[in-house]
């Protein structure tokens, strides 16, 4: 993990580290990535977050590991 600077946290999103402002919620992160929460499934530290309406109250903390997945073409 790279060192966070003051006012920032570093979290891992889909395998890559990202810096974001301290206190951001999952909803803030998705908005910044221009992802519609209804089109994805999010797993945080190995646990699926089933209630999308709770994303605004899920505060991201240092060293969180998020997986943001969706359906793609496959057979």
């Amino acid at each position: 993990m790279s060192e966070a600077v003051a006012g920032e946290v570093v979290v891992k999103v889909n395998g890559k580290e990202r810096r974001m402002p301290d206190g951001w919620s999952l909803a803030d992160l998705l908005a910044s990535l221009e992802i519609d929460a209804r089109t994805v499934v999010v797993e945080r530290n190995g646990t699926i977050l089933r209630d999308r309406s709770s994303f605004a109250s899920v505060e991201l903390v240092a060293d969180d590991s998020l997986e943001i997945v969706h359906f793609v073409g496959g057979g």
Partner: protein
Amino acid sequence: MAHADLISSATLTDPQPFVIAGHEFRSRLMVGTGKYASNAQMIEAIEASGAEVVTVAVRRVDLDRSKDEAILHHLDPDHFFLLANTAGCFNASDAIRYARLARAAGFNEWVKLEVIGDQQTLLPDTIGLLDATKALTDEGFKVLAYTNDDLVTALKLEDAGAVAVMPLASPIGSGLGMLNPYAIRTIKARLSVPVIVDAGVGTASDACVVMEQGVDGILMNTGIAAAQDPVRMAAAMRLAVEAGRHAYLAGRMPRREVAVPSSPTTGMLGS
């Protein structure tokens, strides 16, 4: 090019509805959504195939947005039955994780379970497959298990709770057609749950011969998507699945090693 004129309206009825885990489906042909040149082509091909069940994969969102990968912008979940797969998973725990993520998308609790055991052949790891089938069935999933054409594994998958067993015709993406019709027929004869041949169908005659074995359905992807004209091939596959099904229901004539004339042998001139 419009292919609507190629699509048959089936006039023959099937005495047995195609039912999996209590859910009746309108087509015995299920299709994948991978490898198409464009999403528009994929949709046109799926429409031409007449398929209702459409498989999709679970993958990370591309955060750099380099590709338009999200499939639900193009597939109406009210019109198609989405069947998530666990393709790319090489052990039971990964497959279980992908299945859980897919279910959390909120469409259904069905999963086409793949636990792959070998990178080169993509043949299944049947031990991991059985473990994952048991675990996911316990969690309330409806498991359609992709497996090889081995009867004993198929029987164990049924015992483990699979709602359908999906033996391969030949390896995924190979287009080799059905390598062992005896094995497929034996599996169909012995299982109570639907048998859906998954993988290996390369062209319409392959699909027809598979259905003539009496199996309940076929799932294919590359056989359509990798054709020169995927939309036309999708229509051909639809016709082939229907033809093979009706040929099975009709019951083929016995094979004979000698010729038997079709025309009368009496009434010949000069007799």
